[in-house]
């Protein structure tokens, strides 16, 4: 390995750091959820067009944004791991995937529950919904490929390549679905252009932050397990106090 120009890129050092960082993400996440949902449910007014149902937005939009954002972050980490052969970034990519897939699922679920009262159907082949579904498939592909390769090094590298190919494809898929959707005007139902109240924007932004903190906390806990699993033959692992207790 090259010189350790970034101390915390060594899994043994990062293990301890991650442990210290988890509460700094988990606690703000809980607080921000409480504040964001309080504003969302008690301060933000009822929407003129959509009534109370619009309040799904405070979880639907953050989940959708994070599911896409996490895919890009995951592909970025995977690419770093592939190019510079840094083990930790590959582990981070693996740790992020399940959380990203979960947000994609929440986005689809809440989208369906929002669509039913607003559009009259659980599912419409809207460009965004369809792309989100495909994104979920891409997450499944990443997780499944990683899980089916026994050698961790090959698993990291193969999944990384898939993630990169997938992230190049995401915009192509999005625009092709959007274009396909405009061709089939029959099923297109557009959002009504209501201007958002300031409190609505605030609440949405705060829950977005809360989701982000949550995702980081989850990834950190998961990456700690992955580090332990991969490094279990090393001396530093057997000297940890959680192992000795």
């Amino acid at each position, binding site marked *: 390995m090259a010189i350790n120009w970034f101390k915390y890129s060594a899994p043994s050092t990062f293990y301890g750091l991650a442990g210290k960082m988890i509460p700094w993400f988990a606690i703000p996440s809980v607080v921000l959820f409480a504040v964001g949902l309080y504003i969302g449910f008690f301060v933000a007014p009822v929407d003129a067009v959509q009534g109370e149902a619009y309040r799904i937005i405070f979880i639907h939009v953050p989940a959708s944004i994070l599911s896409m954002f996490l895919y890009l972050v995951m592909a970025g980490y995977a690419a770093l791991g592939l190019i510079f052969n840094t083990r930790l970034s590959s582990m981070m990519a693996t740790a992020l995937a399940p959380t990203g897939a979960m947000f994609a699922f929440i986005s689809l679920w809440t989208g369906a529950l929002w669509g039913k009262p607003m559009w009259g159907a659980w599912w419409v082949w809207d460009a965004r919904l369809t792309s989100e579904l495909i994104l979920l498939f891409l997450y499944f592909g990443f997780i499944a490929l990683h899980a089916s390769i026994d050698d961790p090094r090959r698993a990291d590298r193969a999944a990384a390549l898939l993630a990169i190919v997938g992230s190049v494809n995401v915009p192509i898929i999005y625009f092709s679905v959007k274009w396909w959707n405009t061709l089939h005007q029959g099923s297109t139902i557009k959002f009504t252009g209501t201007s958002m109240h300031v409190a609505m924007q605030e609440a949405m932004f705060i829950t977005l932050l809360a989701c982000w903190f949550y995702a980081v906390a989850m990834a950190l806990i998961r990456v700690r*397990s992955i580090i332990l699993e991969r490094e279990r033959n090393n001396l530093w692992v*057997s000297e940890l106090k959680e192992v000795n207790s």
Partner: protein
Amino acid sequence: MSVVEFFNMGGYAFYVWGSYGVTLLAFVIEILMVRHKRKITLQQVRLMREAGEEA
């Protein structure tokens, strides 16, 4: 706004609480899974170490 009114969500109770309920469920399941994985991993590491000490 009364409590009943709040939970009724202007008739959209099923949709709104269905969204938040499933989200909460997903979060709880993920947290449990992550903690379970940590427990299992620690157990494995301990087993490995004990096997190593005996050898």
